[in-house]
Structures are given as C-alpha cells and as structure tokens.
C-alpha cells in the first residue's frame, strides 16, 4: 500500500509511541524478578475501595444489561484472569449486568456476522484491526466519539491509537492491544545446527533453513503458510520486495498490483523455498494453528508470527527457546513488520444506555490497575508478555523481566518499520491465495501467469464493482 495517508501516519505515530514505552522498559533494567508461581491465583485482582465503588455506581441508576463476547473456555490459560476481572467489574458496577458469552470458538467472524445480521450482535466485542475497518464501513461499530472525548482516560492511550478505528474524524473503537510481526525461530534447533544468528536476507534465509533441516533430522527449516490465510504472510514478502498487493487511489478507488515486479518476485521466492531449496513442510496447505503446533513441538525451526508468544509458551515451550527477529530483508532491502491487534467495539444497534455501559465496561479493562493485573498475571504464570503496551502509564519493565533480552530487542527492531495489511484484504484474500497455492503445489506453474490470472479475476469480480460504487457514492 503506497497511499494510505492518514492511516499510515497513524501507524507510524503509534509504533513510535509504543517503542518509547517499550524502550523505557528495556532501559530501566528492573531485574526485580518475582517468582513465577504457576498458579493463576498468584496475581490478585485489584479491588476498589468501598467509597470508590459507591461513587462510581450510584445505586439509584437503573440496571443496564449488556452482552459481551469475552467468556474464556475452560481450558484457556487466562480463564482465571478474566473471571476475576468479570467479578471485580460486577462488584464495582452493580448497575451494569454483563452476560459473558464464549466467542473463542473457531469461525468467530462468521458467528459474529450471523449474530449481527440476526439483530443479536453483542453490545461489546473485540474485533481485530482489519475486521474493525470493515465493521466501521458496514456501520456495525457505534460512533463513540463523545464517550471517548469526555473520558479522562483518553490521554492514557498511545498517541494516535484511536485513529486506526476512526473515520472522518469520528471514533469507533477503543484500542485493546497491539502486536508486531517478525520471524520466530527455535533457538535450540539453531544451536544444534551451529547457526548463531537469525537470517537477515532472503538468500541467507534459504541457506540457513537448509542447514537447520540438515542438522536437525525430522524437522523442517521453515513452516510456510499456504492454507486459507496464505495471503497474510505472503504480503510481507511483497513488502520486502518493495511493493504491495493493492493501491488506494486518491479518489478512493482501488488498483490491484498483483502483477507488480515485487509481487512476482515474492511468489517466485515462495516457489523456490518449496521446490528449489526444499525447506518447507510437505503439507504446505496446513493452516496457521498447525504451523504453530509444528513450531512448539520442535518440528519446524522457523515460522512467521506476532510478538505475542502465548500460543507457544501456553503449550509448554520454554520462553528461552523462542527467538524473535525482524523479517529477512528482500530485494528492496526492506522488511516492514505488520501491525496487528484489536479494538473494543460497541454495537451500533445497542440503545444509548447499553452503549454507555459497554463503553464503561471496555474502559474498565483498559484502566491502569486492570492492565497491570493483566500483565502481572501473564508474568506470574509464564504466559509470555507482549512487550508492546497500548497505554502509556504501564511500566513494562516490571513485566518483561522474564522475556529474554534478545527477544525484546527483536520485537523492538521489527516494530521500527510498521505497515498495515493490504487494502480490501477481506474481499481479495481468496484471489491472492489461489496463485500462492498453485506455485506451492505445482513445480511447473509460472508465478507471473498465476498472478495475472488472479488479478484479472479479482478485477472483474471485486474491483470493478467496488470502484464503480465508490465513484457513484454508494457506501461500501
């Protein structure tokens, strides 16, 4: 994406602000390690004083009932944390009755849209960055500008963080958390192979992956993502080659750039990793959770992923074995990192009372004490702490003491060059995935030809209509 004006400035501003917080954390050198108890109960939920509670929630206020899709499943490593927070919220805001629903199952997006279409959407939910953009466009997210502007908590958030959930000067979401992506590697397998540092370029990456595979029998050098979200990781390679998959034009229309030199080089590299260097898993169409599983079970030496490592540590992987580095740079000499995360979103269809209650609910979780409780819990239970905080008043140095210094340095380095996912991703994803799968499964396929076919199809089936609607002023 070359032209995304305000959005890009926002991203840069947020990441700079986040880096400042995180760098403070590194520099403070607080080594005051607390013992990891392994028990969720070791972090006690902060309790408000009785007078505070009374002042926040006068008993004369009518009861407001809201629905939140945030219940954790029984096997969730943070179930105890969330349950304690729910309890504390209920104690502090007796006038807001929250029905918690488990939304952690697979196909959450489908269930969410079904619920919204049926008028049963939750009053408060936590969509990811790309979904948030779609929900704002579709009118699913409530305009919470007045709530945000009148909240004293607003200034606690990283500069510009609300901008990612804003449109035409109105605010539609409360920043929940953020992460940055990079190369995740298994230090133990690197050590076995005698490889000291993570690869820094495409060429180095391929040879390192070969060495790792050779020296660690039964493992693969790199788990590539070829299933339904294949475009998610593929876009990084296009960025590394100096391009993107779409370009937003000044008039709001979209131009496809699947056949750009950068995209073709990226797909050729994908093809080479599979057929020339032979460093990927054979099951290239496995999905991302399977890639993660391969990594934490020691079957693959490298994967791509976010700075939040709970998926690995939560499954028993030693945090000291996990390395994090910026992506290897491509032919363009750059390696932008994708910025991801989530927002709290209030339902546009909820009544004003419910919207206010939902906003209060979200801000409770973003309060300083609840954020500190959140990070302390993760630290105490060895769940891995994402070093990037979305609020300014959290001293991350207290919580990242168990995170290896090189991991932290890798996250900070990768966050220096952030980029948002390509525009119209949700509509174009299936078109981009097709050529990726083709080159990963057919050694005779030609990247340019496949990308050309995909672009023509996407142009005809998505972009022509999209641009026509944009130019005629029909809301998307």
């Amino acid at each position, binding site marked *: 994406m070359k032209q995304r004006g305000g959005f890009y400035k926002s991203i840069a501003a947020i990441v700079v602000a986040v880096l400042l917080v995180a760098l403070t954390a590194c520099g403070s050198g607080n080594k005051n390690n607390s013992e990891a108890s392994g028990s969720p109960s070791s972090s006690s939920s902060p309790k408000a004083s009785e007078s505070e509670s009374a002042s926040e929630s006068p008993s004369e206020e009518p009861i407001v009932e809201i629905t939140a899709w945030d219940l954790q499943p029984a096997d969730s490593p943070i179930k105890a944390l969330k349950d304690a927070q729910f309890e504390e919220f209920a104690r502090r805001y007796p006038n807001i009755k929250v029905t918690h629903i488990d939304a952690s199952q697979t*196909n959450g*997006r*489908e269930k969410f*849209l*079904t619920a*919204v*279409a049926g008028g049963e959407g939750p009053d408060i939910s936590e969509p990811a960055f790309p979904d948030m953009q*779609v929900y704002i466009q*579709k*009118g*699913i997210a409530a305009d919470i500008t007045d709530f945000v502007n009148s909240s004293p908590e607003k200034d606690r958030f990283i500069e510009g963080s609300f901008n990612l959930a804003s449109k035409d000067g109105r605010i539609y979401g409360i920043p929940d958390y953020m992460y940055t992506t990079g190369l995740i590697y298994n230090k133990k397998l690197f050590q076995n192979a005698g490889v000291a540092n993570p690869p820094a370029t495409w060429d180095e990456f391929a040879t390192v992956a070969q060495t790792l595979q050779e020296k660690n029998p039964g493992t*693969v050098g790199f788990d590539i993502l*070829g*299933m*339904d979200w294949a475009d998610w990781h593929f876009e990084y390679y296009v960025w590394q080659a100096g391009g993107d998959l779409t370009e937003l034009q000044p008039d709001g229309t979209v131009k496809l750039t699947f056949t750009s030199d950068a995209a073709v080089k990226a797909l050729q590299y994908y093809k080479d990793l599979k057929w020339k260097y032979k460093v990927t*898993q*054979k*099951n*290239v*169409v*496995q999905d991302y959770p399977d890639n993660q599983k391969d990594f934490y079970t020691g*079957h693959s030496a490298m994967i791509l992923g976010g700075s939040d490592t709970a998926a690995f540590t939560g499954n028993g992987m030693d945090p000291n074995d996990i390395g994090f580095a910026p992506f290897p740079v491509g032919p363009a000499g750059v390696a932008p990192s994708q910025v991801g995360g989530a927002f709290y979103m209030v339902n*546009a*269809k909820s009544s004003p009372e419910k919207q206010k209650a939902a906003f209060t609910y979200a801000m409770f979780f973003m309060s300083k004490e609840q954020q500190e409780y959140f990070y302390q819990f993760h630290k105490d239970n060895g769940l891995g702490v994402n070093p990037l905080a979305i609020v300014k008043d959290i001293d991350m140095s207290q919580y990242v003491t168990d995170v290896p210094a090189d991991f932290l340095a890798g996250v900070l380095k990768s966050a220096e060059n952030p980029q948002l996912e390509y525009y119209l991703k*949700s*509509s174009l*994803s*299936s078109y981009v*995935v*097709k*050529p990726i*799968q*083709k080159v*990963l*499964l*057919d050694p005779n396929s030609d990247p340019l030809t496949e990308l050309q076919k995909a672009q023509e*199809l996407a142009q*005809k*089936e998505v972009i022509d*209509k999209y641009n026509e609607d944009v130019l005629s002023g*029909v809301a998307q």
Partner: protein
Amino acid sequence: MENQRELQLFETNQKRSRSRKKIRWTPILFLLPSIIVFFVFKYYPIFDAIYISLFNYDIINPPGRFVGFGNYEEFLGSETFWIAMKNTFIFLILSMAIVFWVPIVQALFLSNIRRFNGMYRVLYQIPSVLPIVAGVLLWKWMYNPDRGLFNYLLGKIGLGPYGWLNDLHMTKLAIVLPGFFASGGVGMLLYYAAIKSISSEIFEAAKIDGCGPWRRIGMIILPNITFVILIQFIGFMSGVLLSFDNIFVMTQGGPADASLVVALMIQKTAFVQSRFGISAALSFFMFIVIVILTVIQFRLQREEE
C-alpha cells in the same frame, strides 16, 4: 316401499358424507408442532433468502438497496461461480461412483448372511454415530504428507508418497474417499429392510426356475427396491450438492479452488465478504437446481414404471 328404500339410502349417504367432512383433529394436533417448526426453520428461511437475494443487503439497516436480479446476474457472470458449479458436479459424479452404491452392496451381502447378522448390522451402524467433523479430521491427519498414516503404510509396500490434499489433481478424490469406508449406516439398513420385504416365495420360485444369484439381483431384488434407491438417491444427491462440512474442514475449498463448491462459496460470500445478498441468491439458485433434478428423477422413475 320403494320410496322408503330411497329415503334410507339418502340418509346413509348423508351420514357418510358428514363423516367424510368431519375434521380429524387428533392427527392434526399431533402434526401441528412439527409443521410450525418446519415453516419457521425451513420455509421462512427459504422465502427470506429469496427476499434478501433481491437486495444489496445491509446487515445493519436491512434490507439495503434493491437491486432486483442484479445479484443473480453478478454471480452467473462470475468465473469463480462456474468453477464452484463444475467442482460441485464433479463431486456428485465421484460420490456416485465411489460412495452411493456401497450400502446397496452391503445390504445385498447382509441379506444373505444368517449367522451373526445382527452383529454385522450393529457394526455397520457404529461408524455413523461418529460425528462427521471428527471423522473428517481423522482422515485429514491420515492424509498429512509429513506425518500421516497413509503415506507411512503405503511406503511400507513401496507406494507413494502421495500429496493427497496437497495434490491439485487428487484433492477431490481424497475428500470423497472417506465416504467409501463410512457409507453404511441408515442407508444400508433401509436397503436391507427393502430386500427383506420381498416375498421369499418369489426367490424360491426363481431358484426352482434355475435363476442364479446375479440374475436374482438384477431381475428380482433391484426392481423391487428401486423406489428406496430413488428416495435414497434424492437425499444423497442433495446432500452432495450442498456438502460443506467435510470440504470446509479438509481444504476450505482449496488448494487453488480445486475443491471450491457452491455451498462453500455461499458461506464465504456471506461471512468473509459480508455480501449476504449474493449469498442468498446463490442459496436460492442451488435450491432451484436441486428441485429440478429431483423432479427429473421422479419423472424418469414414473416413465420406467
């Protein structure tokens, strides 16, 4: 005398016609709940889908902009739709060739087994108790070209390795193949019951006339269970044309659209692209396709009879 007889006859007819007109409330009351449920959960969604299909549906402020048959025109002009249609019918042909006939053969064999017959019937039923998704996941793991059971076992006899779901030309077969091994269940029991309902006298007479087992199957059994086969085929056909779970779990329509079917396209259009109008139009289109195929089946059957 004559007049009296006529009068009696008239009264009897009156009574009969009154009893004919009398509404039998008991069966109606028993059927009413299921009829209501059927209308609410079957007919209402169908009519609602037709209505939604005429709009550029807005889920927040329904129904959105009226587009008439614009959604139908759009998907009919889309290459992806025709890929999905082609794949859907390839799945139907493959399923008919690999899966449909298996319970008929099982029932034929079972009807000739006297010892442990009950045990076999139970054994055939047990796999159908397994949830579809669990079964499909097991197959997906067995197909895994890195650590799957199939390539391991085939490797022992010098075959493979095969890509299974990682092979563009093998994906459809790999998705249909589990049906061959798990196609018994209720279908087999229905065929078995139909075969058993054929009078044993016919078989005995045929045997006396020197009719061998193949001729008995072709001339007696199959003609006598044709109606069950037809009913089963209609259910089977609509099941395959709308199949979703197994493909979604195994490939999500990939790789490179090799297993993209219309049902999956309906789901993706609605829940990935949030285009509920087109999704509803696709659903209604498939409904019409299945109705047409079913009517053709019944007509052909009637002509044969």
